[in-house]
């Protein structure tokens, strides 16, 4: 019995400081976890309504794409010198959204941050669908999407290889690796949970499909042992990957000799912004989900409080980066840079710059208040503003820089067209369509990991609520 009452590692590692905030007192046993999470898979009218809206939005984007293919890229509002517009803005926006999932599932796992357990599955799925959405935009941007395979690094018929010194080629490697690894991470974590669904399923056809998807998982000690090690190493690989992906995306800009872009601060600035926006999107999906699926006792106010602290911290990092950019422009004594940054906040696009400063710097300061950090309605509203602000951040990086380069005769305009806006709407439709389909087919919370938090039944000694758990999940 001694090995139960005093887990060996507890003495070595010391008490888990994160665990106190993430207990699930309203969850009594393993069977309840199964019941509650499987109950979320039932279809409802609200879900059908949500899916219909998402599909409609996606069709708006799809129709615009057909229109653009027929009439050409001029419909995208491109006008020299602004030959990157909504598509690159929205691409960076969605890649950024995709950061929180792997951050939560990998980095917070390695840091043993217990609050990740209830939200990481939804965040991981969000990552995969966000990167899938982002991946559409380079294909849309090339104008002739049937030539998309030219983006893949392989030699052409003259045996000419892509230029591996080009940031755009780095981008292809970074995004495709990120999508592959995020999808793998999501699927590996899902295997034990699909096995739970399989064992509870009564419909023979569905049971057979779940048997195949679960790969014959049996919860044996051998399987868990290798699973835990594989999960740890996947997290270890994903951690630098998360940081590298948006760094590489930032190189698309930072490697170019354009005012406002050519700055060494870009990689950390982009990564912090990505985590910031990703967490905001986690709120956008997790807060309604916890209410509609009645999961308040799994995603507790403590969980939301912890995520709010991450958002507050990343807001401070992003805000500092904005201010440092202005400082460097002033301190550099480079007139083009100075004029550009003045133009950024007081020029043609002033409203975009002030929108981002308001949404990303000012409004998140409300999170210093614990009362607001624990108010789901406020967090949901704030998440919408942060999403808006982060889209405008990329707008401010792309459009004013390209329209206001070194020589005044190069300066130009960019007008957002209805085709641009349709693609933006369509991208949200595409993203939410996949997410809504996901939440009704597979568990939106990690059943096996939730069981790690819930105290197991004990015949002798403590059970149900005794702190035997650890915070980070599989070790």
């Amino acid at each position, binding site marked *: *019995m001694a*090995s*139960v009452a005093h*887990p060996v590692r507890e003495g070595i590692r010391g008490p888990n400081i994160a665990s106190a905030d993430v207990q699930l007192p309203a969850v009594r*046993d*393993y*069977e309840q976890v*199964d019941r509650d999470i499987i109950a979320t898979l039932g279809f409802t009218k609200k879900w059908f309504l949500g899916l219909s809206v998402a599909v409609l939005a996606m069709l708006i984007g799809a129709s615009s794409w057909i229109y653009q293919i027929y009439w050409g890229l001029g419909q995208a509002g491109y006008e020299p010198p602004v030959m990157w517009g909504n598509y690159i803005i929205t691409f960076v926006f969605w890649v950024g959204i995709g950061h929180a999932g792997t951050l939560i599932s990998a980095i917070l796992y390695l840091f043993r941050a217990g609050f990740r357990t209830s939200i990481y599955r939804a965040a991981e799925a969000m990552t995969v669908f966000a990167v899938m959405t982002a991946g559409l935009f380079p294909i849309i941007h090339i104008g002739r999407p049937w030539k998309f395979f030219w983006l893949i690094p392989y030699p052409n018929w003259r*045996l*000419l*290889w892509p*230029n*591996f010194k080009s940031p755009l080629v*780095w981008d292809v*490697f*970074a995004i495709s*690796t990120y999508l*592959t*690894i995020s999808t*793998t991470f999501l699927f*590996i974590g899902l295997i*034990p949970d699909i*096995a*739970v669904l399989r*064992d*509870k399923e009564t419909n023979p056809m569905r049971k057979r499909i779940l*048997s*195949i998807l679960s*790969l*014959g*998982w*049996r*919860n*044996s*000690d*051998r*399987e*868990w*042992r*290798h*699973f835990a*090690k*594989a999960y740890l*190493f996947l997290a270890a*690989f*994903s951690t*630098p*990957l998360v940081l*590298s992906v948006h760094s*590489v995306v930032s190189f698309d800009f930072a490697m170019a000799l354009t005012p406002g872009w050519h700055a060494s601060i870009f990689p950390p600035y982009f990564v912090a912004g990505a985590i910031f926006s990703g967490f905001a999107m986690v709120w956008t999906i997790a807060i309604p989900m916890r209410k509609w699926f009645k999961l308040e006792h799994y995603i507790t106010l403590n969980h939301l409080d912890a995520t709010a602290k991450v958002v507050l911290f990343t807001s401070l990092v992003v805000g500092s980066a904005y201010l440092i950019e202005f400082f460097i422009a002033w301190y550099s004594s480079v007139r083009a840079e100075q004029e550009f940054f003045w133009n950024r906040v007081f020029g043609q696009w002033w409203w975009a710059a002030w929108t981002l400063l308001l949404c990303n710097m000012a409004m998140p300061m409300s999170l210093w208040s614990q009362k607001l950090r624990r108010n789901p309605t406020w967090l949901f509203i704030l998440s919408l503003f942060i999403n808006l602000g982060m889209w405008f951040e990329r707008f401010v990086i792309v459009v004013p820089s390209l329209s206001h380069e070194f020589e005044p005769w190069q300066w130009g305009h960019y007008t957002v067209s209805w085709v641009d806006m349709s693609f933006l709407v369509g991208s949200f439709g595409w993203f939410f369509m996949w997410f809504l389909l996901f939440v009704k087919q597979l568990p939106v919370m990690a059943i*096996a990991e939730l*069981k*790690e938090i819930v105290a*197991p*039944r*004990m*015949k002798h000694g403590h*059970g149900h609520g005794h702190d*035997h758990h650890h915070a980070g999940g599989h*070790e």
Partner: protein
Amino acid sequence: MRGVTGAFHELDTTVAAIEDLKKKRLGDVTVYSPTIRHELDHAIDAPVSVVRRFTLVGGLLGVSFGYWIAIWSSNYWPLVVGGKAFASWIPYTIIGFEVMVLVGALSTVAGMFINSRIPRLTTTTGYDARFSGGYFGIFIACDAAKADQAEALLRQHGAAEVRREA
């Protein structure tokens, strides 16, 4: 495979049964658990997973390939820029890193699959659907001579159900 399966509802009785079974050496023991429990790990005391070797080999192969493909293709079809080397290792570190992560992570998954013997589409002797829910399970692979002893031991430790596998 012949043997005896016991289903337990409590973790501490499962651990006690495993420890006793190991002392009695009645046969190979497989433990089923709805989630990872360190108490079970310590009772089973299995060797460290070899998945880490797959990770190391995959990562090294990936980083080598990433650098090699970039350097080889630069020398194969040079883009001549005055005063600059055809191959430059600094930008190629990005390619090396990304391919290391890609191959290393996929090798890790392959290592997990190979060592866990999955995908497996046949039923497993001793498994019960309850073991993914709220029950812990112990399967002892043994012949009929030792089955009585194993069954008695599982019952003695409070198994909710014990059954023989033919």
